[in-house]
């Protein structure tokens, strides 16, 4: 028999290491032709930290993303990036890039203020132009600015780093400030369960994530979709089997450790939620791990909801489902 069920799962996630310093740094140079070198330590493992660094630099400097070239994760070139973990790179390396850009802009501001004859604090850098927020007719292009920089023998270089504002936690009770900022999420997921075979079909999944400020909407969606794939797999198909004698992993291959294929995916509706804050670069927060988490409890709850049973253990494999359903039938027949 096929039965459907719905589950809700929520989470919050502290960005960066827990109650520990975990700084990251960046170097920036705006070149005479308005192209920019951004150098970060952060390892990009496909999640997009380099793209994030480019976007934060472009936004801060008032240039286009095409102007930015990012070099990353080469220890002889790039400063400390810390680990790509704890969903920290957008928040921490992003802030480091912003700080490095702000430093580089010191000379840019001074030069533009001289040329436009306006106070530095009135200057707006946006879309490859510099203008006064008080009088937008006072404006110059970026190439003009870089020309003025060259004429004066000034360089637009910056080094910046960021260390989240946390405290060490008190060993007695863990009190303190473990993280500077938190990401939040809610996932609602629908499944269909075959009570005869225990097969689970993931139907639909809505997953809303407070990312502060989305840097790149498609990358946000991609993280949520990929996280949902991994989170649902956590519950219904993935498990490491350990040989009880040798304690070796029995299924170290992709044919025996079952991750979902495209045919196993639900229809996913990712939602990026914005929230107001100053801590992250333009308010941005991490998403890598939050993307995964809420679909795990949501899947557990949805399968439970379909059967009218509560599951407290993972994984929930077909055999567990058949067993739970039979036990429930037996209990109902007795009662």
């Amino acid at each position, binding site marked *: 028999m096929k039965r459907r069920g719905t589950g809700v799962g929520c989470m919050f996630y502290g960005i960066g290491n827990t109650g520990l310093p975990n700084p990251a740094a960046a170097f920036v140079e705006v070149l005479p032709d308005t192209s920019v070198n951004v150098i970060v330590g952060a390892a990009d493992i496909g999640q997009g930290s380099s793209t994030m660094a480019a976007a934060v630099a472009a936004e801060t400097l008032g240039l286009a993303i095409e102007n930015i070239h990012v070099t990353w994760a080469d220890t002889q070139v790039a400063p400390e990036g810390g680990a790509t973990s704890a969903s920290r790179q957008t928040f921490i390396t992003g802030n480091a890039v912003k700080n490095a850009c702000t430093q580089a802009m010191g000379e840019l501001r001074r030069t533009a203020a001289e040329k436009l004859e306006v106070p530095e604090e009135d200057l707006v850098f946006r879309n490859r132009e510099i203008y006064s927020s008080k009088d937008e007719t006072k404006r110059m292009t970026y190439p003009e600015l870089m020309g003025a920089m060259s004429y004066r023998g000034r360089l637009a270089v910056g080094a910046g780093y960021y260390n989240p504002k946390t405290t060490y936690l008190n060993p007695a009770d863990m009190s303190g400030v473990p993280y500077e900022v938190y990401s939040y999420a809610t996932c609602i997921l629908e499944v269909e369960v075959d009570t005869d075979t225990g097969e689970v079909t993931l139907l639909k999944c809505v997953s809303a994530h407070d990312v502060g400020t989305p840097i790149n909407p498609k990358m946000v969606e991609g993280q949520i979709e990929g996280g949902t794939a991994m989170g649902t797999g956590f519950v219904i*198909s993935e498990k490491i089997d350990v040989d009880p004698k040798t304690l070796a992993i029995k299924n170290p291959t992709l044919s025996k450790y079952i991750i979902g294929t495209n045919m196993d995916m639900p229809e996913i509706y990712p939602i990026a939620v914005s929230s107001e804050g100053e801590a992250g670069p333009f308010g941005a927060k991490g998403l890598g791990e939050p993307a995964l988490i809420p679909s795990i409890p949501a899947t557990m709850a949805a399968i439970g909801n379909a059967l009218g049973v509560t599951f407290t253990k993972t994984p929930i494999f077909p055999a567990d489902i058949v067993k739970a359903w039979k036990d429930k039938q037996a209990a109902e027949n007795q009662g």
Partner: protein
Amino acid sequence: MRPFDFYAPATVVEALELMHQHKENVAVIAGGTDLVLELNERKANPAVVIDLKKLKELDYIRVEEGVVRIGALTTHAAIAADRQIEKYVRVLHEACRQVGSPQIRNLGTIGGNLAQSSVAGDGLAACVTLDADVTLRSVRGERRMKLDEFLAGEGATRRNILAADELLTEVSFALPDIRHTATAFYKLAKRKSLAISVIGGGMVATVDDNGICTYARMRAGALGRYPMPFPTCEAHLVGKKLTYATMLETLPIMHDQVLEANKSRPWSVFYKKESVQGVFKKVFADVLHQLGLEEVQE
């Protein structure tokens, strides 16, 4: 991979001679979806590897005088795409359509699937359900037999009776008359693609003009060393009007049989004895639908 010599004969005769010549330590390769992995992991260490992929004479699907003949080198993809197989032999169509992945179906051959005789081979389960014949050739000549006989191997060490220098060249079976006969297959697996069968259940059922079952054959792969037959279930159906209710009556028999065969593995048998019933419920529903006898709502 350890070293070996490689031959790619152009004809079956040439291949058989090579196999005979090197039979002490030879491996033949067609799709390669099993052998290359074994070679790569140093689990298979032949001195000679003979490639069969150039034997175009063994790549065919023919229907002759009511018999379907499929050459051993026909890929799963080719069988799944064949319109006649899709229309007349659902059990084989469904089995081949769901083997591995598109890439694997483009490589893997029906002959390889049968000769490997893997526990979870879907093509094998389907062909056994069809009570197919296989043709084996060697330098000594040709022999033909039922798949059931072919699989009378010695289990782990030798999976079937194929001699070291013998080639499985063809599988054949009677073309079902779809006015009276339906065939069906359901693959229970851990994911919806790239999956190995947990159970691959197949059925052939024939009814007369009054809907009375005159023939039934049920087999399920991955429940034992070879596809498991359910003779008591079949006997229960023959002579009765084929209805979902009647077919469901076979499920307790099936349950007990699977339990008995797998009782040494307590946890896996629980799931197998229960889910095999779910698998065949779907198979039954499909058969009844194809025969136009009953539409079963899940």
